[in-house]
């Protein structure tokens, strides 16, 4: 092919691509014009994820191209799975129903049939994240006044939601590697509120919460009253394996920092538990809440929604309101980054899946 012909082909291809892209943008801009968008939440009204989602919902219409009317609804049950199944199997894939759901990837990793549509089949839009803070009662033997004391802790109980909740599984993995079999597992609490009550009653002594829940519920009732002390935060793990502490909790060491303190700064954890922990940490610290569309939903809808969320997150009024209510700034995970996280679910080492399945089954 001569240079002029190849140049012409390249030019034509570039023109076509540009045209397609602008058509896509134009379609995204028109998609929601005159329409109503329903945002579902998979927990009851009044809870953390509900409030979180409603704050976004109040500002979204202004920033989603086409300015749809926004309606926010709740559908709770079975640890949030009822709503996922509904979105995957019942909701129409017309772009007019989306969600603001807290997810639990453990259910998919262990192949639990109660999740009827795998998370990676949904159309991912954006997600949010928040660091998780772990805390323990000060009166746990031998007396805990700070993170370093935690390394000597023994004979305590951890509070959990259910055996396959990521919150529970991550606790067990992290404590197994850090402290060994020095704790008991108490699971079945219907939510964080009864679990925190049980901590005040000394039925359980260790738990963790996302930063908003920690600042909103734990700090005023247990930290400031001297009952518990924060001991570590779960580190952020990027999809390419880099570890970092959240800048929102600057004074708190990460779990890995404590591991180094105990075993040596050059010693890295290893083994199947470490692989499982890395996987769960990477999935959850990168993506706490997910905005998804039903499988097969139009790409224009996803693009328009993503644009809306990304712009809202930069709105000063939204940022002020969010931080005032939630107690921490909103951390949005963009489309491409979020897709990389969810794509991990399709590439899990079968040994890790098998291990986690067995680990969950033998939680007690």
């Amino acid at each position: 092919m001569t240079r002029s012909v190849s140049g012409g082909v390249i030019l034509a291809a570039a023109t076509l691509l540009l045209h397609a892209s602008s058509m896509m943008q134009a379609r995204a801009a028109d998609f929601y014009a005159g329409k109503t968008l329903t945002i579902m939440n998979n927990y009851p009204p009044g809870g953390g994820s509900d409030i979180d989602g409603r704050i976004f919902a109040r500002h979204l219409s202004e920033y989603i191209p086409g300015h749809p009317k926004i309606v926010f609804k709740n559908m709770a049950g079975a640890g949030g799975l009822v709503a996922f199944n509904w979105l995957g199997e019942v909701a129409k894939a017309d772009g007019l129903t989306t969600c603001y759901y807290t997810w639990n990837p453990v259910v998919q990793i262990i192949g639990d049939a109660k999740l009827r549509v795998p998370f990676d089949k949904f159309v991912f839009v954006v997600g949010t994240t928040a660091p998780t803070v772990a805390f323990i009662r000060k009166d746990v033997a031998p007396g805990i006044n700070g993170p370093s004391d935690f390394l000597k802790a023994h004979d305590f109980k951890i509070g959990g939601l259910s055996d396959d909740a990521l919150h529970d599984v991550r606790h067990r993995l992290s404590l197994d590697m850090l402290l060994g079999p020095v704790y008991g597992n108490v699971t079945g609490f219907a939510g964080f509120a009864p679990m925190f009550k049980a901590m005040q009653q000394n039925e359980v002594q260790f738990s963790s919460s996302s930063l908003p829940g920690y600042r909103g519920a734990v700090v005023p009732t247990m930290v400031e009253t001297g009952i518990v002390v924060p001991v570590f935060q779960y580190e952020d793990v990027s999809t390419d394996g880099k570890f970092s502490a959240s800048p929102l909790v600057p004074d708190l060491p990460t779990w890995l920092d404590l591991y180094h303190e105990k075993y040596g700064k050059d010693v890295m954890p290893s083994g199947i538990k470490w692989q499982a922990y890395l996987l769960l940490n990477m999935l959850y610290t990168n993506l706490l809440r997910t905005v998804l569309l039903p499988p097969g939903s139009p790409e224009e809808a996803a693009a328009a929604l993503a644009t809306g969320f990304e712009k809202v997150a930069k709105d000063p009024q939204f940022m002020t309101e969010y931080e005032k209510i939630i107690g921490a700034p909103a951390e949005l995970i963009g489309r491409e980054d979020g897709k990389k996280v969810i794509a991990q679910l399709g590439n899990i080492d079968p040994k890790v899946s098998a291990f986690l399945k067995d680990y969950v089954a033998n939680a007690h």
Partner: protein
Amino acid sequence: MFESFLAGLWMVLSWPAIGYLLLGVVIGIFFGAVPGLGGITALGIMLPFTYTMSPHEAFAFLLGMFAITTTSDAIPAILLSVPGTVAGQATILDGHPMALKGQAARALGAAFTCSAVGGLIGAFFLALSVPVIKPIILAFASPEFFLLGCLGLTMIGALSGNSVLKGIVAALLGLMVSMVGYAEIGAVPRYSFGIPYLLDKLPLVPMVLGLYAVSELLALTRNLSISKLPHDPIEGTVWKGIRDAIANWSVVLRSSVVGIYIGLLPGLGGSIADWAAYAHIVQTARDKSKFGKGDVRGILASEAANHSVKGAALVPTVVLGIPESAPYAILLGAFLIQGIRPGPEMLTTHLDLTFSLVWTLVIANIVASGGLLLCANQIARLTFIKGHLIVPVVVAFIFMGAWMSTNQMGDWVVLLACGVLGYFMKLSGFPRPPFILGLVLGPILENAFFISKQAYPGISWLGRPVSIALLALIVITIVASARMSIRQKIAGGNLPQTTEVEKENPLISLPVVVFSLVIFVGGAIIARGYPRDPALFPLVVSLPGGVLALFALYFDWRAVWLGWQSGFAGGDAYMLPLRQLRAALLFIASLAIIPVASLVIDQRLAITGYVIGYLMILGRYSWWFAIIYGGVCFIVIDLIFDRLASIVWYPSLLPLP
């Protein structure tokens, strides 16, 4: 402290807070009176409207609304035998029989009066206890909750009337049904059979509406008015009801205390306060003969408790940031949205706001009860309206109330299935209250038991001081109940036979008993395939359930055999209920048109179509009247459930735009 007390009052009386409070009261009256809506729906819908209000305005509105939904819920409970909210179930037992006797105004007068008194007692308890109550709340941990659930089970006897055996079977059946769904213990879905709807627990509202409403509507389809007797101008007045509340002040006070006790303990749920108070009053009454037949004390007990519980339930929410139940979780969310952190700050920095909650409860209860008392006579007149005019609108709200639970077609299936079950139970001697008690107590018992087992070594959790006291109370209650019933039987009297149970027909009872037996035996067989912990409770419940069901089967079979031998000499005793059963099943089958039609056309149209069809075919009203009536129903449903509540409609083939 006193300055904060007064500051709280000024907060509520200032404009626009007082305006929001009064608006909240009006909205709350509506949400309480419409079956299936209730306080939690009202809070969920109205919460976003409070974002731009100041904290005391927001709580004047939300709490003013929520506090009195259990005042107006007495209206459908008394008039229609349909609980307006899940907290108004026990009011039906004596309230509706009074309406049947032309004493609806008296029942409403008693209900509204002691609602106010119970609400005020709860509010003052909140004011007095907030600074000091924390140790008491924290003394009740999982072991105590398990034993409280067991104590609740001892109420079965009081709620079963003459049919103690069937009452216990009904309660165990309720416990079994409560185990359907996802068990946090073991993370296993139980009895879901791969059906997504059964992944979560069966929702309470459609079950209660089905058990009570559907079977009670049947009487109205015979175009009879609710009241079978004319208005009683002496015994049936509102003023008589008010005097009843004053004369039985001990009942009101004790029931309010029961409500406070339950509200104080997060996790028990306000829906058992009315049952607990009712059972307590029955257990401690000297003359039990009229309970279930229109004893005003039954109404006083239920209504006082379901109001005092609200003030008390605010205590753990405000002091500890621990919501007592789902509606309080929404209120907690409202605190967070307003930038208020429940906990010690509510006793220091925000003490005036805490007291404004107290004043909101006081004012809302007085205003709502006073307003409803003024309207009670007019409301009571509904009992004299022809049944065909009432049935369609009640059907519409029952179906929508059921749909509000999870917005899935399963809600309607549960509604209709429980309608069949409720009617059979009524004709066969199986009391419904113990079944509901089992449904409500099941999750509490199981969850508390497993957490106790995990958190404490061995059975040491039974040796905690409060646990020992509760164990003693359980034993005392069982022994006292048993002695009382033995004494009564020796003296030749009967235990109170509630109108809950119509004349028992063993021909109809047999299939109910067989159904129970299938549930217990089948449940046990399936449970053996679950891991150890999720299997424990189903096995523990199904074993005595199966044995007792066998006894019931033997007694019913013997009654049928004896009847057969005598050629069913009872005549109508056997046949009349069978004819009624046929009519009931036809009616319930006609209701099934609504969900079937909704698969194709929009639900609102399906319900409206039923309303119009009912009026024209059964009611024999003119087409224009039916269409106007149906049109109004459609508009009201659309406004409330679509525009206001934003529910998720079923994706029918031909939805409305």
